[in-house]
């Protein structure tokens, strides 16, 4: 967290010490008031009014888990890059958007290929598992490539510059990628062609309170795949040589270089991994929500960044937890507090502020080494 505070502020900070002291006292009190209010609303809505039945809660929870899984996958990208370079890669949402486009075009192409002599089905429906796998490989490859070149072009030349400079470069890259996609792929909403076994809207039906709750196939697929990818990433970071060099670079670049770690290469590999995960998230987004356009990465990108901060930026399990918490808060929260659903973003950020009030380094965040500050 301290990474964002500027050195100049630290020097001038002494003058404001007294003011800061008052706020230090007020902060937990304010936090407690907000928490008490939330508890009161929860009691009102859940116990007194009982506005929604179990079927509705299940539906809300399903929506929350699905979107949370996608947030987690994108949040990992922010956290990985932050952990190693201490910069926020604001173009990460756009990397996801390009992955979503890659998935869209892959599915379209597979649907256009005809196989089978008599039946004349498309490749997409004849070999759905292979088609989905290929679409994910294509989406992840494209996004990984974008992430790789993004770092080479927009961030590497600025490695030695003050911290705010690559941040501005990231925002510029984000706008560039958005506009490039708008020019290349037209600004219209495009629809993803799903294979029949993963039809949007179809799913397992369970009966709760005499109401049918649909668990959509695409949603389960999205969630399971997110979890699998997160586990795979965790293994990479913890058990492989690449993961070891990533952790070494994250701890201390200079020392890692002295120990024979190729820092530039490790950073490139980090961008490739975070890009591939964003690409997977993009293809899933297309499969589950069905709509792809040039702006599709922006909102998930911002939300995932929030999730990464919520969980403790720089911390991998934290990003996963933050993503899931944010997804569930967004979908269940407004109903539980009995407020308008348009306020879900407000609620998400209120939760972020409360968490940061009590745990300034995020849910699972740790105190950073002096070198990083």
């Amino acid at each position: 967290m301290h990474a964002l505070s500027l050195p100049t502020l630290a020097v001038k900070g002494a003058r404001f010490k007294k003011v800061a002291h008052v706020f230090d006292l007020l902060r937990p009190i304010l936090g407690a008031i907000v928490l008490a209010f939330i508890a009161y609303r929860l009691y009102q809505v859940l116990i007194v009014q009982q506005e929604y039945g179990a079927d509705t809660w299940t539906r809300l929870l399903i929506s929350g888990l699905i979107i949370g899984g996608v947030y987690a996958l994108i949040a990992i990208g922010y956290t990985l890059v932050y952990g190693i370079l201490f910069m926020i890669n604001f173009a990460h949402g756009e990397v996801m958007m390009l992955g979503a486009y890659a998935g869209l075009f892959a599915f379209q192409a597979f649907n256009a290929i005809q196989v089978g002599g008599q039946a004349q089905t498309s490749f997409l429906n004849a070999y759905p598992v292979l088609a989905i796998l290929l679409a994910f490989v294509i989406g992840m490859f494209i996004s990984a490539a974008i992430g790789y070149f993004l770092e080479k072009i927009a961030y590497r030349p600025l490695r030695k510059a003050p911290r705010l400079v690559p941040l501005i470069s990231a925002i510029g890259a984000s706008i560039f990628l958005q506009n490039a996609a708008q020019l290349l792929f037209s600004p219209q909403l495009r629809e993803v062609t799903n294979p029949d076994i993963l039809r949007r809207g179809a799913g397992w039906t369970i009966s709760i309170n005499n109401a049918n709750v649909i668990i959509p196939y695409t949603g389960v697929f999205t969630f399971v795949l997110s979890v699998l990818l997160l586990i795979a990433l965790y293994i990479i970071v913890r058990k492989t040589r690449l993961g070891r060099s990533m952790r070494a670079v994250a701890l201390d670049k200079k020392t890692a270089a002295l120990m024979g770690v190729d820092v530039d290469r490790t950073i490139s590999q980090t961008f490739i991994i975070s890009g591939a995960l964003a690409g997977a998230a993009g293809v899933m987004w297309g499969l589950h929500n069905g709509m792809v356009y040039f702006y599709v990465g922006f909102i998930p990108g911002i939300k995932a960044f929030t999730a990464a901060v919520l969980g403790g930026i720089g911390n991998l399990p934290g990003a996963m937890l933050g993503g899931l918490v944010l997804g569930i808060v967004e979908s269940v929260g407004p109903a539980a507090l009995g407020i308008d659903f348009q306020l879900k973003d407000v609620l998400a950020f209120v939760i972020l502020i409360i968490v940061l009030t009590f745990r300034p380094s995020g849910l699972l965040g740790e105190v950073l080494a002096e070198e990083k500050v």
Partner: protein
Amino acid sequence: MKSLKFVVVLVLVSILVTACQPSAAPSQAAVVSGAPDVCTSDAFGCAVFKPGEVVKLGMGAPMTGGNGSYGVDISQGASIAVTDAGDVKGWKFALDAQDDGGTAEGGASVANKFVTDPAIVAIAGHIFTDATRAAMPIYEKAGIPMLSPSNTVADLTTLGSAVFNRIAFSDTNQGNAAGDYLFNTLKVKDLAILHDGSSYGKGLADTVAAQFAKDGGTVVATQAITPGETDFTAVLSAVASKNPGAVYFGGYAAEGSILVNQMKQTGLENAVFFGDDGTYGVDFLTHVGANGEGAFATIAPASPDSAAKTAFNAAYLAQFGKEAGSLSPYTWAGYDSAAILANAVKAVAVVGSDGNLYVPRAALMAAVRATKDYVGLSGTFTCQSNGECNAGLPQFVVVQNGAWVAVQ
């Protein structure tokens, strides 16, 4: 030294800016010798056109994004009107359609661009409400009349604007008719209201809710969604818990089509989706597919086929390769809007003694508002003193077998 240089540059720039300003402002044109008397008495002066210059009609519309088909369609309709309008005393008309994205920021920036162009005399637009609302005060200062083909939001004509007029029906009519139709014809007892939080969507949704409640129905849920998002399953699940017979949505096709798709997976598969004039169009149909069967929308009533309309439809098909009206319900209104403005320009324009064409701006504003019994492609229009030129009721349409079909 450096700061001195900066000050010098600043002074030079400010001199340049102030020196350029008067020549760009159209109101100063009246001092040109050879100008007819009407320009000196006109509150906003005259727009001056040298021989060979074109008289421009502006349009601000969403050309890109999920609702881009509206802007593309309406500007195409208006461009045919500009061609059909011929010339005014030898000067040709031209349409300058700019992309405002349908947003307030976009509307203001397009309006600011138009008021600095002395050749713009009138605006056929804007198309979306938020853009219009932001643009109105800017045109008001410059004395440029507007005639919107598609702004339906009720309060736009109650703001006392001297420049804003519209030939679209008012949302008061649209909302009341939709509320009545839901209760009386579709026999819906419990209605859920969704809107996109825009002044158009929310205003319309509020009108429908009020009318539906007045008729005796119950509004069981009112929720707002965030435009631009693609996952509305949470809010739909909460709405589904109230078991509404129908969901009314005030907003545009981009979000409307996603709502229709996700209603099927959130327990709202039996509820009727009832949209507005913003959810009608081909974009909606292509995105919802089979999920859209039975979805309602409102459109401007089709005026009886006239020779002019047949000619327009043929011209539209020939020029743009699509049936007129397949992209949005407003292409005919776009034509009418540009045609009325061109007529008004013809009525007030004068050729000065120096051979230039003069268009007195305040007189043009009055002429647009004085439109009376104009028979257009989308109806017959008589403007009232508040700028309301259409007293008509909307027409309801429903999706049947993948196409919009008119219902009674």
